[in-house]
């Protein structure tokens, strides 16, 4: 009916139903950075096993939105529900326990820890520690270069490798939803293509992905649904195939 | 506004007149209280100038206290110079010492600066303790000060106390003060606007050193006996830090309030000096947690009320 690939739900495998369950629901949130009103009445919905993309220029509020979902910021108004549970106001480390993991903007790998230690930090929460070796093997399959460099200090990795490390790290705790914040920043087109292929691979295993991207074309290619933000508001939403180029550009630039 | 300002000015003049006339109508106890208050006020104003306005947390003011006191002792005892001159030289020597260490010290930032200043004072302490000329660790009795009357010392203390407030007030209203305000609000931005940060901070450092040296001279007129362990000890700074924090760092009125409270507390608990310091420490911590701007700072913030405003109107 939708003509879009969606894999079975979760790595543990749960039969693979094709219901459109809403995993994340953001309703009418306002977010302030100190005195600065960053997000205005923002709502969005991410269905399970979807890839949803948030597009917008610099300063549109995309990262603010991501940070709010992850718990770094708190909405002054509105609610965020994850799998039916209210999560606005949770601290980031609590959001992780709920099953939300973030690949932060700028990668932010721990420079003085090795690749392996970085990955281990990804499964710091107690539930994940027992499954560490199993999940680690899967991550190494996904990103073989990480296994190769596992004992190197993460600061010695290239930009693309650090991005892979950041993604791998976020996956270590077997999250249901992964937030990808500007993963193509500072990387060459070939590397970006490579990384997006992995993201698609991750998604086919059932993990829901919420992406933030400045690159319109790439977002439209990768996502099942897109939101276009400008000046802290959602201007447009819809499936990539259904949105006209003209409308997208109007929304992107706030015209 | 003008009317209010002159009312404030009259009030201040009245208070000062009252203090000047104190020996004629008050008990010796209260004269002593105001004497100690004035000395502590002067010292903490100078610490406040550094910490509250220049952003330099110094834990080494005791270096200048020791230098000032010893200069008084050496010049008045060994060279028979008049006391007022000896005290003045104490200030000059303090400034020179400050200038001498400014090159290495100003390369240190933040906590490094704090520990660096403290270490310098400790170095002085050890040097003076091992110096035959000043009587090693046994110290000096400043005999020429014996002949001074209690009231004379009181007036000297009052003079430096008032002078310290005026010095800070006029610095803040001057060009140097503008620079300091700019630095306080936004250091990097002010640098791009041509404020010579190093110069500003250095000048404050020198002024504060000199004043402290002079105040110390008066202080040791009162204490009579000076020895390296206490003269160069961190205890001086401890009290200045607490006074300024509790009173209100970065305000002119802060050290006034803080010094007064300190002296009262100290007198009240004079039997138990450790207890007074303990209480002071506990109050200081509470203040930092609850009202980090101190008493006067919080009052200023909430009520917009300033007695001695350095702001240009």
């Amino acid at each position, binding site marked *: 009916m939708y003509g879009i690939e969606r894999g079975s739900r979760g790595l543990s495998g749960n039969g693979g139903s094709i219901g459109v369950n809403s995993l994340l629901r953001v309703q009418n949130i306002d977010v302030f950075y100190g005195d600065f009103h960053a997000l205005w009445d923002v709502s969005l919905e991410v269905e399970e096993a979807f890839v949803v993309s948030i597009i917008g220029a610099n300063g549109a509020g995309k990262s603010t939105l991501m940070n709010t979902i992850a718990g770094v910021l708190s909405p002054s108004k509105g609610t965020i529900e994850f799998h039916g549970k209210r999560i606005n106001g949770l601290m980031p480390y609590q959001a992780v326990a709920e099953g939300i993991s*973030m690949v932060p903007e700028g990668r*932010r790998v721990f420079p003085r*820890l090795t690749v392996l*230690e*970085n990955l281990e930090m990804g499964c710091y929460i107690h539930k994940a520690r027992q499954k560490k070796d199993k999940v680690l093997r899967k991550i190494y399959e996904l990103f073989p270069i990480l296994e190769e460099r596992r004992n190197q200090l993460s600061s010695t990795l290239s930009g693309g490798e650090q991005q892979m490390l950041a993604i791998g790290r976020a996956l270590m705790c077997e999250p249901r939803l992964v937030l990808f914040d500007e993963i193509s920043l500072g990387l060459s087109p070939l590397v970006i293509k490579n990384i997006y292929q992995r993201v698609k691979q991750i998604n086919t295993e059932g993990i829901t992905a919420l992406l933030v991207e400045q690159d319109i074309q790439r977002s439209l290619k990768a996502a099942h649904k897109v939101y276009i933000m400008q000046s802290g508001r959602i201007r447009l939403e819809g499936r990539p195939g259904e949105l006209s180029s003209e409308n997208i550009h109007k929304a992107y630039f706030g015209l | 506004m003008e009317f209010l300002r002159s009312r404030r000015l009259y009030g201040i003049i009245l208070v000062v007149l009252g203090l000047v006339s104190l020996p004629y109508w008050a008990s010796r106890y209260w004269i002593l209280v105001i004497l100690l208050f004035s000395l502590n006020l002067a010292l903490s104003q100078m610490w406040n100038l550094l910490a509250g306005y220049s952003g330099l947390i110094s834990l080494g003011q005791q270096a200048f206290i020791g230098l000032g006191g010893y200069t008084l002792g050496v010049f008045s005892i060994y060279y028979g110079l008049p006391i007022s001159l000896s005290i003045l030289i104490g200030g000059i020597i303090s400034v020179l010492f400050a200038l001498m260490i400014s090159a290495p010290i100003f390369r240190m930032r933040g906590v490094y600066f704090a520990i660096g200043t403290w270490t310098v004072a400790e170095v002085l302490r*050890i*040097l003076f303790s091992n110096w035959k000329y000043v009587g090693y660790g046994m110290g000096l009795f400043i005999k020429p000060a014996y002949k001074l009357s209690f009231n004379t010392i009181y007036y000297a203390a009052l003079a430096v106390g008032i002078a310290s407030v005026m010095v800070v007030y006029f610095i803040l209203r001057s060009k140097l003060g503008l620079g300091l305000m700019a630095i306080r609000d936004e250091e990097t931005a002010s640098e791009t606007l041509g404020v010579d940060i190093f110069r500003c901070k250095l000048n404050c450092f020198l002024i504060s050193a000199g004043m402290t040296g002079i105040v110390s001279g008066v202080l040791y007129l009162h204490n009579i006996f000076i020895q390296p362990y206490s003269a160069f000890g961190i205890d001086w700074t401890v009290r200045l830090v607490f006074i300024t924090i509790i009173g209100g760092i970065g305000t002119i009125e802060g050290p006034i309030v803080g010094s007064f409270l300190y002296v009262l507390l100290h007198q009240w608990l004079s039997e138990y000096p450790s207890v007074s*310091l303990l209480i002071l420490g506990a109050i200081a911590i509470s203040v*930092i947690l609850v009202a980090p701007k101190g008493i006067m700072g919080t009052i200023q913030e909430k009520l917009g009320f300033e007695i001695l405003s350095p702001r240009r109107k």
Partner: protein
Amino acid sequence: MLSILNELKVPITNGLLLGGLYGIIGIGMSMIFGIVRLVNLAHGDLIILASYLSLVAMTFFPVNPLFTLIVVIPVMCIIGFIIQYCLLNRILGKGMNPPLLIAFGLSIILQNLLLLIFTPDARTLLTSISVKTIPLGNFLNIPLVYLVDFIVALVSIALLSRFFNRTYMGKAIRAASDDEGAAQLMGINTKTIYAFAMALASGTAGIAGILVGMTFTFYPHTGPEYLIIAFGVVIIGGLGSLLGTFLGGLILGLAQLLGAHFLGPGFQLLSGYLILLIVLTFKPTGLFAKG
């Protein structure tokens, strides 16, 4: 050449051994400074507090002070945890000054509390170790207590190193010190982590306190002396590595005893201070700083 070495063999050996003690004194401060970005001005007083705790423990159980480690370390850890969790965590991120001043306040409170409880008399953790010397062949005699200090310090630092490299908590502490925000995104509750780091640092202060008490006399006011030593060790050795701090301790110890040898015993502390000032002026990040 040989005769110079012979003349210097005592200050060099003693300097190195004492340096070990200085290393464990500085480790706690190095941890807090490197991890929480806080300078604990009360570190020296915490060390002396531990000395007094050991003293108290010994009045109940007349044993070798080293056995009191069993009691003193946990108590110090708890104290450190509470200080961080209840006091210092509140003013994290509000600038460098408030934590500095609170630590200062704590230092004064501790000193005066100890003064009230224990009076200003000099104390020491007397044990037979304190006076014996061990002969090293015909070469020289080493004060046994210095040797014990060195070994305990070395073992402690080695254990600490294992902790940071092999355990989840240790790596989490390192991660939080690299990037607090990213650590939070991993599910690490950084406030609790900082409290554990402080607990650990206070534990090392506990070890240092007992060693100090065995080696020197102490009063309620000796804290600041050890604070400056700790700071000196951290600055000389540089932030970011346990080994660096240990080496910093060795250098400080050497500097002090060589200074005392050439200038006289009154100048032992002075030599240490001068080295500290020199390093502060020219290379504040330390001689062995990492990254």
